[in-house]
């Protein structure tokens, strides 16, 4: 019995447990259901906020697909829209792009078309693995299932969403899809409507423009017609007058005509004769020209051909005369020696002919180099002293005291001329003296050789320069020589841009003087020289390298950034850096500080990414493959949607001042230590949350001070207002400010003094961005001085509070100001790395303060001293008064005197004909370049300026100057 009871009891207990268990499962199930229901509600509410507002259809698509990817396990997705309920057009996709030509699908055709035409959501589980593959850098995997969500409004299809999943589609996901259909439908409809409206508006705008064009043309045509009518009237009146005159003249003419007719016949015949003889002359001229050229070429070739056999003759004659085998008689040795001597004379003659014909044929090139006159004179003395001693002739050498004893010309040719003069002098002088003196006349160098020899009669002084002629037919026999020396010298002097002068008296002696410019320019024309200059090659090369880099080096990083799972991170950072190693360091550091990081290597992509992901902070390198990173800074700071994002610059070139002016949050110079990076990142991180910004106001007048105080205090800003410079300095010692607003007239110290004091004591005072707020009327010079410290100067007036407020807001977006001490230190490091510009003085000629400012800070950071001229006239004054200037950067478009004219004026002055001038212009066409070069510029760079390119141009042109000052 008790056993039965026990059994029953147990049975009952089991039953109860079953019931309880069932109940609990039911509760859990219903809880789950309600949890899913509320998740779906919350998610769809989330989506409807995201799709609220005026979005374009692409924006709707992007938001939607991103949302679906976050909420469900879809890995690939696409949105199609339909305007006409006939075709589906691809809008956007994630991890998917339709093939070319397949962006459009007919509704009802194909799987997607059919599913989209239906009313219900289609779910396809267990699709074949080949259906669609998700391909990543590591490999590929297949989608397991597909969902197609048709979007329907008023029974018409307006689009569809297609989603691919890695696993089977879950019920709650379908629930979500169902829930959001109406939200998406209405968002797409409103976007489509907006698009249509926009299209229509654009079309209307085009019509409106065309209408205006036609009106303008009509007006223009009217004006032209009016002008023509006026001209016609005037012409008509004139014509009537003329007609009367003409009638008179006509009569006279008719009479004359008859006379002329008779003469004409005569003339015609003479004309024929003339034409015939002219043709003959032309032919002869051509023949002559050809003949002369043939002659030169023939001589050049022939001389060369002659030298070869002659050389062997000479060697053999020499061997014979040495009589090594002792088998020749004295007479035979004498013969051999004679053969040798005559051969040598012949060789000299041929060499001379060769030289002469080379010069005449234009084949001789000059090769300018620096020549020290002292050493030149020494080498001449060494050469001719033995002859002088031998002939017992006094040989005097003299060099005049002159400013510079170095010249630039072709050494070989110069020596050839001087040797010829000297050997002539010794040759024709039997007793007395030969003197050689060098002096400078104006900008020419004069080499004079005076002898007391036989001299040349006045009527023969011309003849001696003609080839194969000497003064007196008998001279040749008496003194030997080919008679070619002087003709060659004359031609060579021409090559050196110089000339030869002779002063002589029969039997008293002669003076031959060679005059050449101190600096020989290549005689080719300017343009050709430009083409040959290394400048172009180098810049072209860098360009090519850049392009190659763009092709090859982008998308090559071996690690993936966080862009695909960025929503897992609370804070996002955009890193713009093309050096993989450094990018990886920044990437890891970002993770350390709990940032999700997206990496971009180009400006273009970075700007797009910043706009899309809206990161909390950006780290920017300036040297990027496509453009300078400054473009990213400028672009993002100009865009209201991205302006607030703090941008930190890490770069190897120091443009910190302009970057901070443009709104950069911080600037770190490469190479950079990890500690520095860590501090910078910590600053970004901590300041991101900090809401309170600090502004220092320096204004002595109480009403104004309170006014500014009130103006700014509304904006979650802490304002410290002080009334004197001393107080301001005190504040700057103990605090860091995000921005400083100051008046220029202060009681104890002028605004300029205050600013220069702060900037000189970077270590003591922190130097925030400055806004000058003044009632004073500034002169150009004052403005320029202030621009060194401040990018925004506001003159008080009706609209000034408005501008002040905007400028302050702009500055407050930065999270961190200058690091003065470090910056200074790093600046000096930089200077030791690049000494190219050190101790050079560069004159910047430009009227645009922004350009002057940017160029000055860039070039000064490389150690150059900068002088500034604001127009052509000032530039000429500066180069005249400051001899240390060794390069000029010349803007073309300027007031008073433009760059072309200024360059021409500078070049007119002899002492500046070698001063390097680089023209800077906004004009882009090739004849603009030619214009700059024609005006005398050495080189040319188009705006907007690429600082790197400019630096390399400057480096290239500077050494030229250096060779002169050495």
């Amino acid at each position, binding site marked *: 019995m008790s056993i039965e009871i026990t059994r029953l009891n147990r049975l009952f207990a089991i039953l109860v447990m079953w019931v309880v268990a069932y109940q609990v499962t039911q509760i859990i199930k219903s809880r789950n259901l309600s949890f899913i229901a509320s998740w779906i509600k919350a998610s769809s509410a989330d989506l409807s906020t995201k799709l609220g507002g005026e979005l374009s259809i692409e924006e709707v698509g992007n938001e939607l697909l991103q949302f679906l990817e976050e909420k469900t396990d879809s890995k690939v997705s696409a949105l199609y829209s339909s305007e006409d309920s006939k075709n589906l057009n691809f809008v956007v996709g994630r991890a998917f792009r339709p093939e070319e030509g397949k962006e459009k699908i007919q509704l009802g055709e194909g799987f997607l078309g059919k599913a989209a035409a239906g009313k219900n959501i289609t779910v396809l589980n267990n699709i074949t693995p080949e259906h669609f593959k998700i391909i990543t850098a590591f490999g590929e995997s297949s989608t397991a299932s597909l969902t197609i969500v048709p979007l329907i409004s008023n029974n018409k299809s307006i689009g569809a969403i297609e989603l691919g999943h890695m696993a089977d589609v879950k019920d709650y996901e379908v629930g979500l899809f169902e829930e959001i259909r109406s939200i998406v439908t209405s968002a797409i409809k409103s976007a489509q409507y907006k698009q249509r409206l*926009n299209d229509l*508006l*654009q079309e209307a*705008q085009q019509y*409106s*423009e*065309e*209408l*205006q*064009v*036609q009106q*303008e*043309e009509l*007006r*223009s*045509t009217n*004006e*032209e017609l009016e002008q023509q009518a006026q001209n016609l009237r005037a012409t008509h009146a004139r014509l009537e007058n003329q007609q009367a005159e003409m009638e008179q003249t006509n009569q006279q003419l008719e009479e004359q005509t008859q006379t002329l007719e008779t003469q004409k016949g005569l003339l015609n015949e003479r004309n024929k004769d003339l034409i015939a003889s002219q043709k003959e002359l032309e032919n002869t001229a051509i023949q002559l020209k050809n003949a002369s050229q043939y002659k030169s070429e023939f001589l050049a070739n022939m001389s060369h051909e002659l030298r070869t056999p002659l050389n062997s003759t000479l060697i053999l004659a020499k061997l014979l005369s040495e009589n090594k085998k002792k088998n020749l008689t004295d007479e035979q040795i004498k013969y051999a020696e004679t053969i040798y001597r005559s051969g040598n004379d012949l060789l000299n003659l041929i060499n001379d002919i060769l030289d002469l014909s080379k010069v005449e044929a234009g084949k001789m090139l000059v090769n300018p180099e620096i020549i020290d006159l002292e050493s030149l004179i020494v080498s001449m003395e060494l050469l001719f002293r033995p002859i002088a001693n031998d002939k017992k002739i006094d040989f005097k050498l003299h060099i005049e005291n002159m400013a510079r004893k170095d010249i630039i010309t072709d050494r070989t040719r110069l020596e050839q001329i001087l040797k010829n003069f000297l050997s002539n002098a010794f040759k024709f002088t039997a007793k007395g003296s030969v003197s050689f003196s060098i002096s400078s006349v104006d900008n020419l160098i004069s080499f004079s050789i005076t002898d007391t020899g036989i001299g040349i009669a006045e009527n023969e002084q011309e003849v001696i320069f003609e080839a194969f002629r000497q003064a007196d037919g008998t001279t040749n026999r008496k003194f030997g020589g080919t008679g070619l020396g002087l003709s060659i010298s004359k031609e060579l002097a021409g090559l050196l841009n110089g000339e030869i002068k002779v002063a002589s008296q029969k039997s008293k002696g002669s003076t031959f003087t060679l005059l050449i410019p101190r600096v020989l320019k290549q005689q080719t024309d300017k343009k050709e020289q430009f083409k040959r200059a290394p400048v172009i090659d180098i810049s072209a090369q860098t360009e090519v390298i850049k392009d190659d880099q763009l092709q090859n080096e982008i998308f090559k990083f071996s690690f993936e950034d966080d862009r695909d799972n960025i929503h897992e991170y609370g804070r996002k950072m955009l890193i713009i850096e093309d050096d993989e190693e450094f990018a990886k360091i920044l990437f890891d550091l970002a993770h350390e500080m709990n940032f999700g990081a997206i990496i971009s290597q180009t400006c273009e992509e970075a700007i797009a990414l910043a706009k899309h992901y809206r990161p909390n902070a950006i780290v920017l390198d300036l040297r990027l493959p496509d453009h300078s990173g400054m473009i990213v800074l400028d672009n993002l700071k*100009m*865009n*209201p*949607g991205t302006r607030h994002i703090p941008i930190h610059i890490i770069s190897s070139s120091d443009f910190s001042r302009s970057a901070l002016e443009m709104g950069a949050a911080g600037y770190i110079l490469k190479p950079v230590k990890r500690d520095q990076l860590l501090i910078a990142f910590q600053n970004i991180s901590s300041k991101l949350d900090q809401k309170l910004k600090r502004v220092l106001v320096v204004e002595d007048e109480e009403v104004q001070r309170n006014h500014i105080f009130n103006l700014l205090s509304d904006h979650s800003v802490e304002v410290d207002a002080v009334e004197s410079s001393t107080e301001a300095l005190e504040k700057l010692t103990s605090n860091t400010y995000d921005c400083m607003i100051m008046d220029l007239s202060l009681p104890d110290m002028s605004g300029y003094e205050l600013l220069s004091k702060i900037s000189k004591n970077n270590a003591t005072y922190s130097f925030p961005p400055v806004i000058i707020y003044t009632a004073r*009327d*500034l002169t*150009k010079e*004052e*403005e320029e001085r202030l621009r060194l410290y401040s990018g925004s*100067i*506001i*003159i*008080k*007036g*009706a*609209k*000034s509070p*408005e*501008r002040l407020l*905007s*400028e302050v*807001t*702009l500055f407050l977006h930065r999270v961190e100001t200058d690091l003065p001490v470090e910056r200074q230190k790093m600046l000096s490091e930089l200077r030791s790395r690049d000494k190219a510009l050190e101790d050079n003085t560069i004159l910047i000629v430009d*009227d*645009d*303060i*922004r*350009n002057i400012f940017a160029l000055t800070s860039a070039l000064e950071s490389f150690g150059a001293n900068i002088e500034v001229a604001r127009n052509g006239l000032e530039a000429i004054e500066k180069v005249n008064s400051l001899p240390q200037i060794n390069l000029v950067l010349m803007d073309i*478009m*300027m*007031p008073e005197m*433009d760059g072309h004219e200024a360059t021409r004026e500078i070049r007119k002055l002899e002492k500046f004909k070698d001063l390097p001038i680089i023209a800077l*212009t*906004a*004009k*882009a*066409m*090739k*004849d603009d370049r030619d214009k700059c070069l024609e005006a005398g510029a050495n080189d040319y760079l*188009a*705006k*907007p300026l690429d600082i790197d390119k400019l630096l390399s141009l400057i480096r290239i042109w500077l050494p030229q100057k250096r060779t002169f000052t050495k």
Partner: protein
Amino acid sequence: MKNSEISKLEIELLIQAIFAKYQYDFREYSRPSLMRRLEQAKIRFNIKTISEIQNKVLHEKDFFPKLIPYLTVNTTEFFRDHQYFESLRTKVFPFLKTFPSLKIWVAGCSTGEEVVSLSILLKEASITKYLIYATDINPMNLEKARKGIYSTELMIKAEENYKNAGGANSLSDYYDIAYESVKFHDSLYKNVIFSDHSLATDSVFSETHFISCRNVLIYFNRPLQERAYTLFNDSLVRGGFLGLGNRETLQFSHLKNNFIPIDLENRVFQKTL
């Protein structure tokens, strides 16, 4: 090929020829206008086809300068659309006065009427520290603008526009009359640089505070308009102003968010701060 198609082809070839030989870039100018203007040119020069124009452009040295006035339309007058100048005087100048010195760019200055108008208004607003860059692609226009000599006939309309724009004096205070012509005072040109600049090929040359470019962009196609807007955007300081012609608008430009309409009716925009 239809006749109209042949004409189209001829225009393209002509434009390429002009660009290759003279570097004047009309490649992105709106075609219907060019077509009409070239029809006019054909009548004026008594030429049958556009190809003949091309022939002359390539082979006759002094033909191209004569053709330029037909490729560009140069209608302008003193204080044209006086409401625009009124708007500058009342809405733009007060703000410009907060800058220590001003740079103004009149892009497409034609024969200089607008430059003179601006100079006069600036003078009357007591703005003295300014520089006007007046640019155009037609050298003959620039030559005329530099001289500052105009027909007296224009002065009746000019005086009326000046008064309507809110001018303080009489326009004749600013010019002298001789030989049925007027010459504006040199003081109005003291701060003006006339220069050759093409919005189609050249780039920004200076930072500016105000750019006036009216009835120029209507001759451009959309990409070229965008190029010009980009130049303006790059040149203007934060808070600088842009004035356009009365049918031109920034509404469809990718830069529209960079500008706020200050006076939409008169097409005056301010670059955002």
